[in-house]
């Protein structure tokens, strides 16, 4: 990995952790958005690595205390989120213009992968504590709904705006960031 990318990874991970540690309503977070965005701009593996690193550090520093046995599942879930950012970028191809359909697409993808993240982490909580998985999923219904809805709205409202901002900052074409990573 190029030192420029190491620096980028460090900055993004710090940003994610910083946002994670700010007091906020339970399950309303922007780490998913940043990981997905990084995966989208700099490649699937880079996004996955950022997601995993963020959740690893968050596991120790979280306001809710040490994550414990749930940490590997959080790492897996957030790595998947970052990875899917890269996959989505690939599925769009080289010359796509930002439209309402894309905003909807990214919202729906956020809803789906947030749900997958919650299922993974709920399983990670249920299995070690010998709780039936279905019961664990149902017990967390309202948390899941808050998480899915907040991420759906956040992705739909901010994702392509952030893509445009980062593109301007880097002075490159919107669809060219994956090159070289």
């Amino acid at each position, binding site marked *: 990995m190029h030192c420029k990318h190491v620096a980028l990874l460090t900055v993004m991970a710090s940003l994610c952790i910083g946002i994670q540690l700010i007091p906020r309503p339970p399950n309303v977070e922007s780490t998913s958005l940043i990981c997905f965005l990084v995966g989208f701009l700099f490649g699937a593996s880079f996004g996955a690595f950022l997601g995993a690193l963020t959740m690893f550090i968050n596991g120790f520093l979280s306001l809710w205390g040490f994550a414990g046995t749930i940490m590997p599942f959080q790492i897996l879930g957030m790595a998947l989120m970052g990875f899917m950012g890269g996959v989505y970028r690939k*599925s*769009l191809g080289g010359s796509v213009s930002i439209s309402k*359909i894309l905003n*909807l*697409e990214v*919202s*729906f*993808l956020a*809803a*789906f992968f947030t*749900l997958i993240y919650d299922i993974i982490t709920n399983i990670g909580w249920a299995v070690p504590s010998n709780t039936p998985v*279905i*019961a664990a*999923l*149902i*017990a967390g*219904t*309202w948390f*899941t*709904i808050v998480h*899915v809805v907040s991420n759906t709205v956040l992705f739909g409202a901010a994702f392509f705006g952030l893509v445009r901002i980062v593109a301007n900052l880097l002075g490159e074409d919107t669809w060219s960031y994956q090159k070289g990573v």
Partner: protein
Amino acid sequence: MELSKRSLVIFCLGWLVSLVLLSYVAGYYYMEFQKEAHLGREYEDMYNELVQNYTSLLNDHLTLIQQYESEKQNLTELLGKYGSCIMRVNVCIDYKEWNATVVWYNDTIVPLGCDVLQATKIVTIMNYTFWPAYQASFVDAINGVWNRGACFWMWYRWDNKTKTWKYGEAGADRYKLTNGEIIRWRYEIPSYL
């Protein structure tokens, strides 16, 4: 506006998410309903048990009232029968130097010819010592409050003529009470000390 295959797949995923969330909510309410139903049954059982216990207690209470009425009647009859053998006196216990409380035992029924000591023993728990040299008893404690230091239990009688309390002239078991007499025990530092 034509949707690509990718968009359709993603929208299907979104639709799937909404279905899953709906099933979560349904499952959540089903679990809550089951929990409430279980609690409802539990409360119903508790209520039935409570009603049974209450009914049983009520019956016991009624039986006790009947017994009480019967005993009261017996005692009233006995009182009428032995009315000429008893008298009523008022006893005051003044814990002045201990906690300054005053307790009255009015209309205490005592046998005719009863002395101050006997009358007080009817309403309190007393400790006393008989002194053969004086042929009288000295009270050491009343209701667990013992003579200590300069504080002693002293007895008085109410003088109807002067309307004042008078120190007992003799030992408590040497003074015979008359009907309607008022006596007082006071935990105090005696005036002669």
